[in-house]
């Protein structure tokens, strides 16, 4: 029994690893593509950030009060000021519209006397939110205007200005478990990606290995040997699972390698070493159970389909469904506590992966996920066995 499974497994495995094209498309390409894509994305985002930071703001000003002007000078902003000329107002607005000028800041001529006289003064700002430099400049000056407003108010009213203060003497203001916060980030991102990678890995070889063999008439040669159909099914599912794991690992390595580039500019430091060996072992067992379920589903569809093309088509809805499941957790980043959730194939994996990544694994949920997944795999293999036994499915013309 084991011998035949091993023979089928070895041959199926050898089929892929001895084929340069398949090695490239199923094992190297996914990781490479993801690495390049994310690095490019990270690079682009980083560049954008730097680009805006290094841009010299072009700001037109009118009647800037001296104390505010002095204050701005201390900030060392990268900016060129030009004086506003009322007769060129419309032209200036056009320049803001086309992005040549970033911001116009107008204080009323009576600003200082208004303040002194207790009259509400209106400062006018003009900017274009559709232009990144203008939008950025507006943000900078609004922040500084707010600071200025408060200092003016404080000057006038003293302590009475503050109706209340917040956290002036509270060192423990921010209570954050850094690891957990990072874990939360992973939990929002990874489950969907993991399911996607496992699925696409299995999708790239499953249809060829089963529907393809039907289409090319090579499965019949296998079926006239004194080998149990279940042995063929198990051998194929196991080898497809291992290859899918390789493919998914490749994607995963691609992500890990591109993380630093992806996060460059945001100044964040994130790494996977917040997790212990035990976490990784748990994660790996869940991945193993999950890939078996995915390969089981894909194998059944491939055995049912007449051609590779038909199989690929029929798999798509399941692929999308699994992505939707993964996405649903992206927003919450939280695992379900309902025990029955851990009986739903794939959805249980997604939830338990989140639990592991956020350090909140409940033993019963973990065990339920593994056991029910293996249960599904057994059912899938029984179905696959039936399909291999059916002459209608195997030899339909």
């Amino acid at each position, binding site marked *: 029994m084991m*011998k*035949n499974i091993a*023979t*089928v497994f070895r*041959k199926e495995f050898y*089929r892929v690893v*001895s*084929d340069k094209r398949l090695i490239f498309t199923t094992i190297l390409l996914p990781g490479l593509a993801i690495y390049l894509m994310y690095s490019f994305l990270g690079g682009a985002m980083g560049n954008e950030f730097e680009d805006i930071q290094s841009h010299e703001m072009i700001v037109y000003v009118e009647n800037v009060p001296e104390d505010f002007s002095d204050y701005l000078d201390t900030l060392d902003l990268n900016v060129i000021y030009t004086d506003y000329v009322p007769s060129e107002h419309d032209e200036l607005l056009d320049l803001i519209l086309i992005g040549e000028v970033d911001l116009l800041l107008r204080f009323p001529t009576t600003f200082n006397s208004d303040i002194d006289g207790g009259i509400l003064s209106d400062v006018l700002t003009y900017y274009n939110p559709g232009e990144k430099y203008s939008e950025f400049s507006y943000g900078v000056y609004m922040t500084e205007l707010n600071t200025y407003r408060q200092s003016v108010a404080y000057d006038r009213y003293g302590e009475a200005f503050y109706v209340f203060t917040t956290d002036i003497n509270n060192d423990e203001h921010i209570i954050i478990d850094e690891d957990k916060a990072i874990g939360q980030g992973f939990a929002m991102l990874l489950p969907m990606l993991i399911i996607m990678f496992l699925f696409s890995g299995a999708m790239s070889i499953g249809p060829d290995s089963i529907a393809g*063999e039907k289409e*090319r*008439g*090579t499965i*019949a*040669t*296998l*079926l*006239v*040997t*004194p*080998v*149990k159909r279940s042995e063929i099914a198990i051998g194929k599912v196991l080898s497809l699972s291992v290859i899918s794991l390789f493919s998914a690992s490749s994607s995963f390595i691609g992500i890990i390698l591109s993380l630093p580039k992806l996060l460059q500019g945001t100044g964040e430091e994130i790494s996977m070493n917040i997790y212990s060996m035990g976490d990784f072992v748990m994660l790996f067992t869940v991945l193993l159970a999950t890939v078996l379920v995915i390969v089981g589903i894909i194998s059944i569809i491939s055995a049912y389909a007449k051609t590779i093309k038909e199989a690929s088509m029929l798999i798509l809805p399941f692929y999308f469904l699994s992505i939707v499941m993964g996405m649903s957790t992206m927003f919450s980043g939280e695992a379900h506590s309902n025990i029955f959730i851990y009986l739903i194939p794939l959805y249980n994996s997604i939830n338990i992966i989140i639990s592991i990544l956020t350090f909140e694994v409940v033993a019963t949920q973990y065990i339920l996920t593994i056991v029910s997944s293996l249960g599904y795999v057994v059912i899938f293999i029984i179905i696959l066995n039936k399909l291999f036994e059916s*002459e209608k499915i*195997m*030899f339909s*013309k």
Partner: protein
Amino acid sequence: MQTLEVRNIIKTFKLSKKQQKLEKTKEKLKVAVNDLSFTAYPGEIFGLLGPNGAGKTTCLRAISTLIKPDSGDIIVGGSSVVKDSMDVRGKIGFLTSELKLEDHFTPSYLFTYFGKLHGIDEELIEKRKTVLFSRFGIDDFREVKVGDLSTGMKQKASIAISLVHNPEFVIFDEPTNGLDVLTARSVTDYLVELKHEGKTVILSTHILSVVDKLCDKVGIIINGKMKICDTLENVKKSHPSNDLEEIFFDLIEEDELGGNA
């Protein structure tokens, strides 16, 4: 015990719309094999003769357990295709054009692979490989991928692989199709050799000369029915011309008249 006994097998196929058009019929069902019986004995070559679509391949596939008869049974050396299909598969060497070899692998790799699936130890597999590969002239391309072989080379590899486990029952569907005269001859010579070794050999063909030269017994199938089944000698004697071709045409004519009436 090493006889192969086909007992009243019936096999009906459901026809798809496309097939109905191809067969020019409105019937939804096609009786491919209709109450067929015959027995093949060790040390004999049994020839199944019939025109295209007669049901030869269907009958042989039922023997190989790839398809199940609707009713009836086939007993291969004491094992029933219905009840002990695994045992049957272990005893037969089956060859038909529909059993393809995977393009990516070499004849040598596949020979070993199928040998293992038949439960043979590797040493014996290598021995049989040496014998069969030199016998069918496969040595020259034993390490070439099947996808790069010619039709005839593939056929030779298929034949060798179907015999990897030295089966007691050899069931070949049109074995000489696509082979040049030289290779065809080496195949038929080998079948005669197998017969002398005491194997039970069944082959199907629509080539009369093959039956004439090779077979000890012959069964003529037309439209899924066994029209005549006896030793070659007796079949020939049943007709004044003593000629297989005449008998064949008479039977077809008779069937067409019967079918129309």
